[in-house]
């Protein structure tokens, strides 16, 4: 039996906490009743962290690990599991349940692998509202890590109509209702207007392309949703995957999207400073007019991000693996299928959203993949404020999250980047089309802590719970086998240290010891509960749409209490 009431003292580690401004000082971390505290009694269990690096538990701001499209990926790719499971006898069994899958791992492997990397929180970045029960049921089966899910709003007919009529209050009331109905966390936008247009075989490839039949543009959708988000004062900002993702020349569309935030600020009670989070920026920072003159636009985009404090981004790093792409961006997945002719799944989710799933191979010997790899790293290396730029792979779109340790090694070591570049068949062409070869910046552990816990926790508005070792935070701690005074010169050792922690502690319980799962305490699902008076107009609209446009009854739509696992509501009062 695990005892979360117990006391724990993590002694003598090199502590990195950007929120407290601790930069590798030798210090102790005390945990009592599952929370970080200033001191514990002499009965506390001692964890000796001397010679090791100590950080708060990792926070993944953008990953796809639960829900129908992830499951479609699992179903359509039996070959993703073959020779890649660690579930048979004879191979060390890591946790209590079977682990399998590489790019779309089983829920069990997802929880265990995050915990082994020192992560204790992951945000599912795209929940189709209609299928929210499925998302929450997968959360229940994903051990150890706390999770949130963001419903997608960027192609939702309700939002389109409220925004077109400039009804911010009604839009906000609808969003608050949907967050409650789906037990969702915040506002996700995927290809605003474009996924709806895809239902008519079209797309919105710039922010000014009108959405068919709605007389509204992506620019208006994004602006309208930012307004509603800030009207409510939600913990997280609008979280966007913009228009024209993955196409050469799209950095201009990305800049157009980012400029929509110009002059908009936020006042919320969660300490969040940004009004827009642009996810997987790598896919949105492409220059050139076609794949033949495709090159990095990382500098242009990051120049803008660096100058504007009301924007945060994550990198969406390509890891050079065979993986599975899955997004609500239906038209993008179709185009990808047309490029590679790999198998393709596509789905329209009634009046809410759509999605597609296509396997993809990022081959180090293909020029495009090499340049994409360079762009992701450049975004991180051009960044001036590491509290606003986070490590992700848009799992599994640019690569599996299990590759984060390798990304950390690339960012911390020019030698590691050079070694990867040296393996590429079109190395010279990759160098010509990017800036990577000339970048000698090497990030330190403090910056890694900013990019993997403090920064994302702040952007999510969850800094009271995650991302820091300050008193009162959840007792989530990662202890890595890294001597901060003498970092290894071999980047492979950095990667090893971040792949398997010496200890991962979740709410005061040691869950990983020497890279092995040793406990599975209960995890939490967080959601955002907005307290506001019922809006009669919006409730009327909801009832009407359910009677005319949905395939199910309103009564059967909201997530049932038994679907949601260990709910922890983040409450706020709307204006």
């Amino acid at each position, binding site marked *: 039996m695990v005892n979360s009431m117990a006391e724990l003292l993590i002694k003598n580690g090199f502590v990195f906490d950007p929120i407290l401004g601790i930069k590798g000082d030798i210090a102790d971390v005390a945990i009592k009743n599952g929370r970080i505290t200033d001191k514990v009694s002499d009965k506390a269990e001692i964890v000796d962290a001397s010679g090791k690096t100590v950080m708060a538990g990792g926070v993944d701001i953008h990953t796809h690990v639960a829900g129908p499209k992830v499951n479609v990926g699992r179903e359509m790719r039996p*070959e993703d599991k073959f020779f890649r499971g660690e579930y048979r006898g*004879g191979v060390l069994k890591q946790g209590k349940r079977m682990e399998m899958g590489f790019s779309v791992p089983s829920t069990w492997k997802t929880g265990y692998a995050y915990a082994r990397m020192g992560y204790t929180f992951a945000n599912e970045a795209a929940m189709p509202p209609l299928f929210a029960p499925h998302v929450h049921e997968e959360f229940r089966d994903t051990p150890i890590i706390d999770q949130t899910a963001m419903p997608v709003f960027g192609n939702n007919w309700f939002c389109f109509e409220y925004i077109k009529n400039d009804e911010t209050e009604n839009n906000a009331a609808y969003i608050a209702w949907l967050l409650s109905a789906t037990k969702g966390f915040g506002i996700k936008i995927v290809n605003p207007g474009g996924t709806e247009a895809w239902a008519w075989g079209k797309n919105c490839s710039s922010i000014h392309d009108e959405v068919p039949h709605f007389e509204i543009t992506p620019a208006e959708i994004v602006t309208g949703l930012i307004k509603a988000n800030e009207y409510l004062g939600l913990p997280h900002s609008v979280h966007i995957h913009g228009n024209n993702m993955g196409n050469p020349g799209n950095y201009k569309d990305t800049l157009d999207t980012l400029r929509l935030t110009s002059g908009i600020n936020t006042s919320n009670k969660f300490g969040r400073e940004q009004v827009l989070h642009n996810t997987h920026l790598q896919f949105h920072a492409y220059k050139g007019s076609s794949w033949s003159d495709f090159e990095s636009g990382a500098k242009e985009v990051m120049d803008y991000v660096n100058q504007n404090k009301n924007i945060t981004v994550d990198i969406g790093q390509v890891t050079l693996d065979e993986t599975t792409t899955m997004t609500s961006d239906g038209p993008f997945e179709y185009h990808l299928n047309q490029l590679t002719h790999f198998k393709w799944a596509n789905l329209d989710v009634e009046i809410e959203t759509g999605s597609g799933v296509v396997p993809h191979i990022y081959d180090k010997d293909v020029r495009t993949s090499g340049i994409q790899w360079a762009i992701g790293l450049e975004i991180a290396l051009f960044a001036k404020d590491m509290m606003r730029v986070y490590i992700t792979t848009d799992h599994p779109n640019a690569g599996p999250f299990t590759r984060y340790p390798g990304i950390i090694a690339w960012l911390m070591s020019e030698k590691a980047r050079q070694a990867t570049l040296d393996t590429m068949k079109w190395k010279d062409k990759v160098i010509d089309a990017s800036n990577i070869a000339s970048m000698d910046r090497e990030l330190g552990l403090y910056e890694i802590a900013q990019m993997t816990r403090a920064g994302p926790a702040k952007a999510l508005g969850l800094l009271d719970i995650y991302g820091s070792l300050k008193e009162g935070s959840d007792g989530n701690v990662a202890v890595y086998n890294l001597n901060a005074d003498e970092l290894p010169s071999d980047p492979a050792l950095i990667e090893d240290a971040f792949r398997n922690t010496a200890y991962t502690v979740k709410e005061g319980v040691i869950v990983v010891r020497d890279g092995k799962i040793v406990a599975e305490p209960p995890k939490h699902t967080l959601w955002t509960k907005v307290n506001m008076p019922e809006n009669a107009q919006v409730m009327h609209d909801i009832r009407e749409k359910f009677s005319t446009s949905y395939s199910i009854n309103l009564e059967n739509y909201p997530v049932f209490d038994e679907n949601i696992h260990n709910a922890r509501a983040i409450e706020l009062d709307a204006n």
Partner: protein
Amino acid sequence: MKTITMTLVQEPELYLECYSVTPDQFAGKSLAEIADLPAHEGKIQWKLGDFFKFEGKAGETAADTKIVVNGNVRKMKRFGQKMSAGEVVINSDADMYIGGWMTGGKITVNGNADTFLGIAMEGGEILVEGDAQNYVGSSYRGDWRGMSGGLIRVKGNAGNDIGTAMTGGTIIIEGDAFIHVLTHAEGGTVIIKGDVEGRVGGQMVKGDAYVFGNLLYPLPGFKKVATVEKEVDGATYTFDQYIGDLGERKVKKKGEIIYGNLYLKK
């Protein structure tokens, strides 16, 4: 070449997964070490020595190692899986996945082989003296990459789904086959010397199918373009040449559209 002989002494209750029986695994090991290699029966892990006795000597390298399997191994799978060199001779019928993912060397089955013979094979040679079942030289379930190199020769009949998603290499079925030959193929050659029920080359982009006997139900996506003489498996015959699958996407090479070919012996 050194030879090691393994003889069945204990039949498994269920089916046994003999993925360790490859020249690559045996090379450089003593008989005791070889007997210690793992094998699975369902979720239970055994040792090869629990089922076989070993005689002879393994070579220093895979290429220098020949494995002879004696006794009825009809309920044993995965002999020669992923092997890169050397030789495996099975003097019995064998179960599924014989020579799957192999990259080199030779496997001889002096009996029948079950389903998934040589799937996703990259190189080397498989000879089956008897029949094979379904999915000869195909891709693994869900995968789009089938056999890409090497030779599979089945002296008897084969079942369904021969060379699915094949990209290279040659499959020769000397007897009859049932349905689905070279489905989704993007290369490779399948020669069927007997009769085929139907569905040859569905969604085929590239590749060559030869049918010597009767093709009962040809697909409508193929069009006759010529009558040609071709040398196939050491002898020359006259064929009607069809191209297709005309319903599938087309690839171009040097400006020319490439088609899959279906050759029916006149």
